[in-house]
């Protein structure tokens, strides 16, 4: 009655799952002294999956598994970005994890499982697969936060994250069930057709929409659903914060684009208004609260909240240009987050977390090169040209402007000016103050090289943003109708 599904479009996911299971088993037979092997196997897993993804790119979307899985250009681009990010996370986090007795097989396998979850999420074409991908990602993240089990701070953060995450999943599922009740389908295209046909009661659709947007906002961490972000960022070990603050954001934006941009596109008029509100309060609260922080991890947490507000500007335009701008923004943000947390991990050493702002005093005198890298990342986060952060902000603002939200663009520019203050304060601390801590800066050669490339990429894509921008435009045009 039913034929065997076409497995080829999901080849990368299948390969990743098989290799993760292999890493999980091999790791059991390795003693602690040779844990480096797990690291290399995990890196190999990630890079092999990337090779499979870039090997063949379809021009038109291909559906499989009863239309629950879609393989399109946008999905492939985002998946490759997620995988590369994870590879960098492994490289940056390795030494930190080793010094804190966290370098266990689970550190790698849980991150790889979370990566699988993100890939499922990015390729989902069905409410069920969207939800399962999200849960796979979230479950691995909760455990990663609590991985340092003797740290009371990490356990508390994991608990908060878990409880709020479960609540968000509940909201999301409730909204999905409403939309299902209205349209009679969970498939994104069928939902869109059902909603467009006008036979769905508007009250049912909008109640479902409210719950879905609330759940999505929780997961991405935008105000007023942001409470977990600062605590989790601060409480989690920095190597885990680096992971949580980077790759899952890309998957989160993919979630927004799939859910709102494809499934609930006929309700765009309703969700645009909700996102306008979320975007404004996120940018305002994120930027203003970040000024008051003395802890760099907390400051970056609030900065994330404001950046997510900017991403929403692109999504709420509800145009192809807007989705391309949002995905471009999130990719560049990920690059900057990797750089900032990378420097933080480089300065950390056994028994010392470089997480207070004062720890960065006089970094220029201690190590001018990495002070320069941090400078590039900070001006990019603030959105000052010629860094890539400027073009990212420009493209989402242009998308919102073209969609007719002139006042919103003015507000966003004003709020990002306020935000520039706290990024520039880090630069002032690094360049104008005397160092309080003069211990040498360690780090393996590969991490130093990678971090340098990371920092310079922020500048390079700022000078030449066009290839990256047109990549996202191309991907969105080919994937979304």
């Amino acid at each position, binding site marked *: *009655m*039913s034929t065997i*599904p076409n497995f080829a479009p*999901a080849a990368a996911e299948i390969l990743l*799952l098989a290799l993760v*299971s292999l890493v*999980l088993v091999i790791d059991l037979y390795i003693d602690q002294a040779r844990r480096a092997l797990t690291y290399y196997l995990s890196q190999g897993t990630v890079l092999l999956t990337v090779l499979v993804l870039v090997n063949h790119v379809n021009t038109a979307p291909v559906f499989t*598994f*009863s239309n*629950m*899985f879609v393989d399109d250009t946008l999905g492939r681009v985002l998946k490759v970005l997620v995988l590369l990010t994870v590879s960098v996370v492994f490289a940056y986090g390795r030494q930190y994890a080793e010094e804190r007795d966290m370098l*266990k097989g*689970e550190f790698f*396998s*849980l991150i790889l*499982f979370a990566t*699988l979850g993100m890939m*499922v999420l990015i390729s989902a074409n*069905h409410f*069920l*697969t969207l939800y*399962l*991908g999200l*849960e*796979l990602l979230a*479950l*691995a993240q*909760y*455990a990663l936060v*609590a*991985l340092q*089990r003797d740290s009371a701070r990490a356990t508390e953060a994991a608990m908060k994250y878990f409880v709020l995450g479960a609540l968000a999943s509940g909201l999301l599922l409730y909204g999905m069930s*409403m939309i299902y*009740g*209205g349209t009679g389908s969970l498939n994104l295209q069928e939902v869109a057709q059902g909603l467009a046909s006008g036979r*769905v*009661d508007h*009250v*049912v659709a909008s*109640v*479902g929409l*409210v719950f879905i947007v609330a759940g999505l906002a929780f997961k991405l961490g935008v105000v007023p659903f942001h409470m977990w972000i600062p605590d989790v960022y601060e409480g989690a070990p920095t190597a885990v914060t680096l992971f949580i603050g980077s790759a899952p954001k890309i998957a989160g934006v993919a979630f927004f684009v799939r859910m709102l941009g494809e499934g609930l596109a006929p309700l765009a008029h309703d969700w645009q208004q909700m996102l306008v509100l979320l975007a404004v309060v996120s940018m305002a609260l994120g930027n203003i609260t970040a000024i008051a922080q003395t802890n760099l991890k907390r400051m970056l947490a609030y900065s994330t909240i404001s950046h997510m507000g900017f991403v929403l500007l692109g999504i709420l335009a509800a145009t192809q240009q807007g989705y391309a701008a949002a995905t471009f923004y999130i990719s560049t943000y990920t690059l900057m987050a990797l750089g900032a947390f990378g420097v933080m991990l480089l300065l950390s050493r056994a028994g010392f977390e470089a997480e207070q702002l004062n720890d960065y005093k006089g970094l220029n005198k201690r190590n001018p090169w990495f002070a320069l890298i941090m400078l590039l990342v900070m001006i990019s986060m603030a959105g000052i040209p010629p860094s890539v952060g400027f073009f990212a902000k420009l493209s989402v603002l242009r998308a919102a402007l073209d969609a007719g939200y002139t006042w919103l663009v003015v507000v966003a520019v004003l709020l990002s000016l306020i935000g520039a203050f706290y990024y520039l304060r880090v630069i002032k601390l690094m360049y104008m103050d005397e160092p309080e801590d003069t211990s040498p800066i360690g780090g393996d050669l590969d991490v130093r090289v990678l971090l340098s490339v990371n920092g310079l990429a922020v500048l390079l894509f700022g000078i030449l943003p066009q290839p990256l921008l047109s990549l996202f435009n191309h991907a969105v045009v080919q994937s979304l109708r």
Partner: protein
Amino acid sequence: MIDFSVFVFYAFAAVLLAAGAGVIVSRNPVHAALWLVLAFFSGSGLWMLLEAEFLAISLVLVYVGAVMVLFLFVVMMLDINLDRLREGFWRYFPVGGLVALLMVGELVLASLSKNFATMGRNLPAAPADYSNTRELGMLLYTQYLYPFELAAVILLVAIVAAIALTLRRRTNTKYQNPAQQVRVKRADRVRMVDIASGETAE
């Protein structure tokens, strides 16, 4: 004269709601767990009414039989301080109550809409030899193969996470090593001492 199945539906639904409320308001966590068992029973009754026999039976077997028993054990072993849990209840009550009211309002509006009034009216009657279990199995391994496999991966992650968070070697606790106990020789435990009369062994 209402249909008997409608009467059964309302009976189960009322018990389900009452039990759900009982889970939240009961002061004793063991009672709360027992209320939850009752809620599962009435839920499975509702499913039986919908002719979803497999789901109804597995809900009772898995949740009531296995999960809730474990849960009861855990609740009994934990020292739950109720007074600390209730701290700040009244302080947060206005905000929480407002949000709850809003949500109830939304749900009432949604469920009153004409959308759900016509749903499920024209379901075809199942033939007499219809097997619920067989159909579910067919769907799970064909149309829903992908989400089914994903659910399996999520369970695997749950196992890995649970073991990573709980298993560790603690060096400062006293524990027995049965293998060592079995392998022990007489010489390890007994020392023969020759004591001449009138002396004391040291």
